[in-house]
């Protein structure tokens, strides 16, 4: 299930930058969750992308996360 690691090694700096932008914006949150799940909780049910995003949003907005 985990995303096949890219074998393309061109433009390493651009790739690193793109990875940083995705991580900073939370664009890769589901992939990170899935990788973690496969590595640590392989037997348990995996949330779909849709379920995970709904859950993440609910957790994110139930505490103080924006400031003055």
């Amino acid at each position: 299930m985990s995303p096949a690691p890219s074998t393309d090694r061109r433009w390493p700096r651009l790739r690193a930058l793109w990875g940083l932008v995705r991580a900073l914006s939370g664009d890769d949150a589901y992939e990170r969750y899935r990788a973690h799940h496969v590595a640590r909780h392989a037997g348990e049910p995996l949330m779909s992308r849709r379920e995970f995003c709904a859950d993440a949003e609910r957790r994110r907005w139930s505490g103080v996360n924006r400031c003055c």
Partner: protein
Amino acid sequence: MRRFSAVVLALGGGIAMGGIALQRHEPINALWIITAAVCIYLLGYRFYAAWIATRVLLVDPSRATPAERLNNGRDFLPTHRAIVFGHHFAAIAGPGPLVGPTLAAQFGYLPGTLWILIGAVLGGCVQDMTILFLSTRRDGRSLGQMARDELGPFGGFAALIGTLLILIVLSAVLGLVIVNAMKHSPWATSTVAATIPAAILVGLYLRLWRPGRVLEGSIIGVSLVLLAVVAGGWIDHQPQLRNAFDYAALPIAAAIVIYAWVAAILPVWLLLAPRDYLSTFLKLGTVALLAVAIVLTHPQLKMPALTQFIDGSGPLFGGALFPFVFITIACGAISGFHALVASGTTPKLISNEADVRLVGYGSMALESFVAIMAMIAATLLDPGVYFAINSGAGVVGATPEAAVHTISGWGFPVTAEQMQALAQAMGEHTLFARTGGAPSLAVGMASIFGSSFGRSLAAVWYHFAIMFEVVFILTTLDAGTRVGRFMLQDLLGHLWAPLGRTSWYPSVLFASTLLVAAWGYFLYVGVIDPNGGVNILWPLFGIANQMLAAIALSVATGILIKSGRARYALVTLAPLAWLALVTSAAWQKIVSADVHVGFLAAAADLAAKLAAGSLSPERAAVAPQLIFNQRLDAALTALFTAILWFVILDMARVCVRRLRGLPLRSSSEAPYRQSQLPGPALAGQ
């Protein structure tokens, strides 16, 4: 090499500060201030923060953090420090550091700038880093929980009440800031109105069509709101459409209250979350653009270093330099609110304790730098223009002629024609009495951006800046209302259990209505106040925010002393003492006989005028509400100060018990476990 860089920093900072000191009687270039600020932050980070981390907090890079021990792939997740830094900065940086310095510029550029730099390096950054560290050691517990665990039930309760009250005052004053930016401005109002469907569209996109594709959604959303800025200019030139978006302050305030109520009860994915993506992108982009533009244009500051208003007679808000510059600038120097974020989501992402220096201290230094840029944007305007935009009609006169006469009489020459030409260049009908700081900041940003990236676009830049401020003020308003609702439900649950259920719809409706009504009331009074309202609400917000910072620093000091590090306690005790002094000096807001400063004096003065029949009919109509509000504000100030001192005394009680060797609540720190994390295997690398 490191020693060499430190010497360069110290020399650079010293030369820049010397440059500022030597040019006291001539216009100073903004680059001096930027250079001094950057050097001071880097020196603070390089030396003070490192010393605090290793000697005071005893940061242990070998210790497993909650992100590692409790890793669930979701909220507890070891994350690369650059990414935690980004998340944390996006969470703490709100409109506060833009508004506070703009208002404090009435004292001249120097007092606010010095406080932003010194307050951040020795106070705000230390608070954020310490609370982040303490929460990381305690499995990411919140400030309220830490206060309860380490001090006692009173501390925890005080933190909860303090947070709830600060949310109410903050929402009201931010609402007022945007009302003043949007009143009788069809361009601004139509642009802001268009951001709501844009956010909803992004929300639907991210929920229904492409779940979790945050970057795609944000790019679509940002393109739409940029389009809305340009389209707003087109609407402004259509006589009929223009009228459809031309509203006075009161209807706009009502619309904001209704909007926030709806936003608080709608599912987050539909409006709040997508709006947050947009505002975060805009915020980071605009801040970066502003920094580049200031360096490119290196404008001269036209405001003097000090103005005569340090005596307390200022038109933006009453009160002398001490303590009011320290109350007006809370965010950007030290902000208690940050302690809530630093004890929320951030500690659950920290992969190594050593990262608290970058994430806690570093993020706050960057926010402080945003405040410095806001100060530059306010002080590069002609002082006469600055005062004309920011002074309420009740202070300088309701007509342009009266206002420019009053302001020129202070020694800051400005003409009605100059203001008219400026308003025209910015695509506005008038810029007089647009209190609250957002419009003058937008004029400042438009002139910086205009001279770097095209002067003919000044009106577009102005409305871009307004849209940028309003969008993330609305995000703060939405998020604040929702968090306040949870807290209120938590409190109400003690009275009647079903009210505490956060998913029970009647309880959701009831708590949201109560909360929105509370801040809506302050917003309403601010709108009808002929002095602009911001002069009352912003100091109240500042006092509340300092109170929260004092609670956070009390918790930190209490923990340091309890854990046998009393000799280093000054690190948090010194900023705490300063805040206690400043907040207590704000007692003037209650007892001062000066009607520009004291709430009670102002209420008594207005009551006497009302009784004598010397008020105009319009002012007499709103006078009873203003009188009641001033008295309520006096009571709130007394409550904030009382909470502050009770928490400090509670902390002192704990410290005395410790020094006498009496039994104490045991530390709530999680036990040591060796970290197994290999350095590079973190998420995001």
